């Protein structure tokens, strides 16, 4: 069965993309979940669409357009909510919509039909070119490196930002760096599930992992495993029944999320009796 699937190069690439992106997703998703910055991450992801439009307009690989654009979005949203007296959700909402608007305008300016645009919005893991695989691998290594170097600082600001500040940490700079890593993770995940659904894969595996973890590193490892599992199962379903791959992965993850919660509720009720 698996053998049959792996005979196709595009399936091998798809599987590799799913596994590689799960690494970034599990590590950064853990921070997103414990620091409760899912909405910010969603904002960064959607703002990134502006970068895709820009890349498309300039005729370069959209990945190259989306990296600087999403990093800019991360820093801007972070600064606006921390420094300017703007309510965080207003800042996020504004960037969210303006980013998408810039993307739409850029695409409209370029004559002709944008065929693979849909795949950036909703993901199409079956068309991942080898160049993108290398890119994902590079971003993975970068994310692992930064998190390894700064794990104690990231733990401190995730747990209690004010205490971290009292301890002498440059919390704003660290927070912005964390948002930048989220932006890079969004770029990594874009190919797999698309920017509209990134937020689900960023949070669901980590949210489930959190229920069974005692430490942050443990949670990361479990989240990576779950993300890989959901991606592989989703990919298999999409291959079997010819479904959209990104959406199937999300539905699989979401179902797992509900099932785990339902199971926990049930066992809690049974225990109480």
């Amino acid at each position, binding site marked *: 069965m698996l053998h049959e699937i792996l005979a196709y190069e595009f399936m091998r690439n798809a599987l590799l993309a799913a596994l590689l992106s799960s690494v970034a997703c599990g590590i950064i998703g853990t921070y997103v979940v414990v620091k409760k910055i899912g909405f910010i991450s969603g904002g960064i992801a959607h703002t990134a669409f502006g970068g895709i439009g820009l890349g498309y307009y300039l005729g370069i690989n959209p990945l190259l357009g989306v990296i600087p654009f999403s990093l800019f979005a991360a820093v801007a949203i972070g600064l606006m909510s921390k420094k300017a007296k703007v309510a965080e959700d207003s800042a996020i909402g504004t960037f969210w919509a303006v980013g998408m608007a810039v993307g739409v305008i850029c695409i409209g300016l370029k004559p002709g039909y944008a065929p693979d645009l849909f795949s950036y919005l909703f993901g199409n893991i079956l068309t991942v070119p080898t160049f993108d695989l290398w890119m994902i691998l590079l971003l993975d290594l970068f994310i692992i490196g930064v998190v390894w170097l700064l794990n104690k600082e990231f733990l*401190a600001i995730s*747990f209690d930002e004010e205490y971290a500040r*009292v*301890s002498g940490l440059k919390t704003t700079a660290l927070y912005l760096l964390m948002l930048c890593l989220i932006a890079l993770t969004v770029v990594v995940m874009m190919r797999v599930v698309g920017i509209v659904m990134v937020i689900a894969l960023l949070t669901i595996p980590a949210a489930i992992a*959190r229920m069974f973890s*005692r430490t942050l590193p443990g949670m990361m490892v479990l989240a990576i495993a779950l993300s890989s599992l959901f991606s592989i199962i989703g990919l298999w379903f999409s291959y079997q029944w010819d479904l959209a791959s990104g959406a199937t992965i999300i539905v699989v993850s979401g179902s797992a999320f509900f099932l785990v919660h339902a199971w926990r509720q049930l066992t809690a009720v049974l225990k109480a009796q």
Partner: protein
Amino acid sequence: MKDPIIQCDQLSLLLGGMKVLDKVTLSVHDGDFLGIIGPNGGGKTTLLRVILGLEAPSAGSVRVFGGAPGSFPARIGYVPQRLFFDRDFPISIRELVLMGRISNKKLFQHYNKRDREKADEAICTAGLERLAERRIGDLSGGELQRALIARALAGDPELLLLDEPTASIDPQMKTTIYDLMEHLKEKLTIVLVTHDTGTISRYVTRTASLNVTLELYESALSPNRESLSALYHYPVNPVVHHSQVSRTLDHP
């Protein structure tokens, strides 16, 4: 005479147009155990936040260890009152306490053996050895409070700032927290913000009452009932505090 550890001169602070602190003058010297009492909204937490460098004063000056607030994070241990963090955070007491070492570490530096030893020492002082591997979510309010004190102690501070360490915990636990403080005041300078007006007088060397303006009592004697009632604007009953030897502090 040695320079004071904390020196506030004519310190005033406006927050959102409201005067929260008004011309507060206060000095805390090496070895002091200062208890600050006062009603909610009286500025107790804000005063601590100014000393920590989290709020800048609108007027007046603050020096901590002779420098601007926030200059010497490693010399200060802070036990916050409001629990900003999430009780479900996947972290054990040991790791929580280890975080108290961060003010002694450089960026990128990982915790080493010495940090872990210091953290374990602080865990012992707080009497939490048997709970060290527990997730913080599994602790009672009093245990968590002691874990936060342990976190502050892990950094080897000279000055300990505690914000309502006995709020929202049961009376028996309060006693163990105060006994812990009694033990710590031998080595540390302590500033304690609290509601327990009756209890603290047994422990502190000086008391100050803060309700936007600050009144200092240069002795351990508690402010009497009349002045307390005036401070709180309602009758105050001193609570009788039973002396009790805590098991948690008896180490072999």
